[in-house]
């Protein structure tokens, strides 16, 4: 019997000497250190600019920041390109693209703010570009927080793993199994199922309460099951146990549905606005060259 070789993804590797917090939030100390150095260099350059030059988007310094920011902004889009060309191994690992996407994107925001001298631009086009840049980077950082937080929430509080795309199919399966169990049960269990359980099994439900934490039990429903169980004969109790298990599984699916939806949904805050910002950046560069 062969022992399976466990392959660990690059983003799952833990550093034994690092704290739990560092392992969770910093996937690569090298990238993080590089980012820190880049930020420090940028800030030092800006201080020199303040001391020795003019802080203005049109000055040599300001144009330098603007060009660097534009290059980074275009660069971070290659992460999306890589995700669509995973078959092309020659392009390197997607993880490196992701690291550049995160740190390069944050550095872009810093350079953009340096470009405008940490002030709000006066023009409509430039104001929108400034605002969208803040939005894009802000939503990206928000996404990172979600990516670090929600999986932990799910791993710690849910006993079921489900594929988000299969949730409707799994819920339908639960409903079918619940209907089958209830059909063979007596009137009281059927009535209880029809009034209390069936509506919950009808469809996946988005419950924001799960962002605050995933309850360990079933709350009020557990008491209803318990009180009904006491009044039922042994064979009905088995059916009630099955229904209770189905209901608990549905609660877990709802937790997944709610939290994974947020995990995927934040991209709608991030990606479309990024595309608009990229288009505006192109127009801004054209306008600068034209005027």
């Amino acid at each position: 019997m062969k022992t399976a070789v466990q392959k660990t993804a690059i983003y799952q590797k833990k550093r034994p000497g690092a704290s739990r917090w560092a392992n969770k939030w910093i996937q690569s100390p090298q990238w993080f250190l590089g980012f820190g150095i880049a930020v420090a260099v940028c800030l030092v350059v800006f201080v020199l600019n303040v001391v020795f030059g003019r802080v203005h988007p049109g000055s040599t310094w300001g144009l330098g920041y603007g060009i660097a920011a534009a290059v980074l902004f275009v660069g971070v889009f290659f992460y999306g390109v890589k995700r669509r060309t995973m078959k092309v191994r020659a392009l390197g690992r997607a993880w490196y693209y992701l690291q550049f996407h995160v740190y390069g994107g944050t550095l872009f925001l810093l350079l953009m703010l340096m470009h405008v001298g940490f002030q709000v631009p006066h023009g409509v086009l430039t104001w929108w570009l400034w605002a969208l840049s803040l939005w894009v980077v802000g939503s990206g950082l928000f996404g990172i927080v979600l990516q670090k937080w929600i999986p932990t929430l799910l791993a710690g509080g849910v006993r079921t793993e489900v594929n988000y795309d299969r949730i409707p199919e799994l819920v339908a399966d639960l409903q079918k199994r619940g209907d089958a169990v209830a059909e063979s049960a007596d009137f009281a269990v059927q009535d209880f199922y029809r009034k209390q359980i069936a509506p919950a099994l009808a469809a996946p439900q988005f419950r924001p309460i799960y962002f605050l934490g995933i309850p360990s039990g079933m709350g009020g429903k557990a008491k209803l099951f318990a009180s009904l169980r006491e009044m039922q004969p042994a064979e009905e109790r088995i059916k009630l146990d099955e229904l209770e298990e189905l209901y608990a599984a549905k609660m877990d699916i709802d937790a997944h549905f709610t939290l994974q939806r947020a995990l995927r949904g934040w991209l709608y805050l991030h990606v479309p606005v990024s595309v608009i910002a990229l288009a505006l950046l192109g127009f801004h560069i054209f306008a600068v060259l034209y005027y």
Partner: protein
Amino acid sequence: MQFDRFRTKGFFSWLKLPVAKEYIYPTSRNMMFFVGGIGALLVLGLFAFNATVQQGQLVSNGPLSSNHAAFGGDCSTCHTPFQDVTSEKCSTCHEKFGDEVGVHTFASHYLYRSDDFTRVVADPNEPACFGCHTEHVGRDNPITAVADDNCLQCHAFDSFNTEHPEFDFAADSLLDDGNLKFPHTLHVNQVRDRENLGDLEQTCLYCHNATPDGTGFQPISFEDHCDTCHLTTSDATPWIATASAEGPGVLTLETLRAQQRPGSLWTYYTNPNEFQSRGATVRKTPVYHRDPWVLENLRRVRQIIYPSRNGLADLLRASGDVDPREVRTLYEEAIATLDTYADELRASPEREVQQELAEIEGLLKVVRRRLRDPYAPLDETKFLVSPAERDTSLTDADIRAYQRVVDQLTQACQKCHYVEDATIVRVQADQGNLIRAEFDHGAHIIHTRCLDCHTAIPIRESAATNTPAEWAEDNAGIQNLPSIAKCQTCHDDGKASNTCVTCHDFHPDKSQHSNLLQYLE
């Protein structure tokens, strides 16, 4: 059905789900790019439409300053596609005067209140107008509010409060160039008592009358400020010998009238009773300010002592070195004198006189036109009397004799004026001491009083005791002006503005701002 939630895949662990052999990009994400793409196209379309069909306000980096608000959406007024905004575009409106230097150029800056053309050295690093005058920062941000950084590219003075050099007059202990014998404390006390002024500052302002814009003072004028007390009807010249073969002297009114020199019309209007004769001597009473009889006799004595001069000095009432900024006034005064001569000739019926008069008037027009050019090179030395030009045939005794006549003629004048080379030394009456900066007294007197800053002469102490100060600490050569430290007490970061343009103009020639010719084709 019990299971360990931490060791199994949970409720659906029995499911055998199909697994792909390679990563499948979720097609649902394409929708995000689609939405973003549609949004980008809409936004780009909006901006492109605004830039091409409308007035481009959305593409502009911000609202124009109120100075250029009239351009509206006509970007081409300043912008040329794919080029920087050129200074030539600015010149289209701002430099139509056509002089060689240009009011708003770096050359005019190098010539800051001087006519020293050697300072004008073209520098390839000179920024264009827009390098200092930032546009598109809003209606309420004047385009003339130039940031210090622009000045610091050439002037390494950094902050006004740390690096700015001391004012010239304080650093070099320069004397006041008023050329007047004037003890301040004596006059302050007398004016205060005579006018019954309770406030010392009112006494200051009795003579120091601010210009309407508050940035300077009107020239001190004898008629406005001095003649109440000085040169009254009791003033007279001493008895002076009349000119004769025996020795130097003065010409009488009758003699001067008979000579009919240009500019002698005053001889017909002067009251003969103002002259008294006693043998070969004459005296005049009263003596007026700029008394024509005194000045004409002074001119005559000058011509005897300095015969080789070009005559330009004779067109002036006074002489002596002037500040380079004042040279223009010499020309203007000379032209005014020539105008007076021309007026007198107009009454002459002779054709030759009229022809010459026409030529003179033509020449005067040419000179006036040249004077309108603020950068026309002017030469003050043409108006100066130089001891080197003294007539060598005159002995020292002759010179002393003529000097005695000069001293007698100007006895009343010398109470306040200096006399050198048989000439009354020109008084710098404009009270303009700041060469490179502007100072708005109107803006300052609200916060501080005259004598809080002008402390070099002990006016307050003298007024308190009603005793004039000693001449050593109250002579007219003392620059009664504050040093930079006084300004720095208020003009500091976080207090009053201390930017370069608070005090300095890059384009200093304000006189040309009102020259409407520069705005015309």
